[in-house]
């Protein structure tokens, strides 16, 4: 059966750590960093369960700052 595999790339320097992408992701792929911050001092979004991403782009759609690029690949 064809399966969708996805990947997200977060522009971590543009990210303001609003957490809306984390909330929007149905599969808990993303989380905010807890210790690491970007140059503006924000905790930023990053993939924590990369394998489960289906590339649905919910995270990127809700991101107010356009920080997320989403890729998707069909696999057998």
């Amino acid at each position, binding site marked *: 059966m064809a399966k969708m*595999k*996805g*990947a997200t*790339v977060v522009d971590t320097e*543009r990210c*303001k*750590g*609003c*957490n*809306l992408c984390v*909330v*929007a992701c149905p599969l808990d792929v993303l989380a905010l960093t807890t210790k690491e911050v970007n140059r503006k001092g*924000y905790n930023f979004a990053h*993939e924590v369960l*990369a394998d489960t991403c289906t*590339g649905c*782009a*919910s995270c*990127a*759609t*809700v*991101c*107010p*700052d*356009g*920080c*997320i*690029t*989403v*890729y*998707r*690949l069909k*696999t057998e």
Partner: protein
Amino acid sequence: MTREEIIEKGQVVYKKPTLLNDTPMHYCPGCSHGVVHKLVSEVIEEMGMTDKTIAISPVGCAVFAYKYIDVDWQEAAHGRAPALASATKRLWPDRLVFTYQGDGDLACIGTAETIHALNRAENITIIFINNAIYGMTGGQMAPTTLLGMKTATCPYGREVSLHGYPLKITEIAASLEGTCYVTRQSVHTVAAINRAKRALRKAFEYSMQGKGSNLVEIVSTCNSGWKMTPEKANKWMEENMFEFYHLGDLKDKGAEK
């Protein structure tokens, strides 16, 4: 399959619209403005109108919209954007002309300009960000502030006896003969964002078809002004704002046969 392979071999299913430039936006984390900026950029790009768009920014949080979306911009005085848009569209009828305004700008100081531009059936679109508060000046009461809602200038909550009622200017707009398409949307979920994008596209298209004026209200959050996390602000909006500001199309004259 590794993440790198997916990125290398896969399709890009979402990226920041190219019309939205790389300048970091000054909006607070989680602000609805950013999502609407993305949608406006996408729609202009998809319509192929980049070289034919003249946008008018307000006074309020979105005053610097001109720094982020790469089209020609005029920065209006507080509340006057619809007047600038009216003249611009009449002088350049084949251009896509829209204003981008907040509730204080559009529904308070600019009420006259808004209502008269809409009722003159100017072939423009007014994008109205309603977050029920003055964001830029630090969270004061707006014409759209809900009853009971606390702001810097109604710190004990908005009361009818002191402040009167919140204004549903979009309902007023729908009652005007000059308006073609009047709708109220939000951008708090993927589905809502997709609907809001379709609404913007429809409004822009009607304005280019000369069908009259169009108002797209986006019920939005101001998590800083509301003193909530972005996530909580979205929930608060769903539970409180939508009850008073019903989502959906109020009028679509363009679809009538």
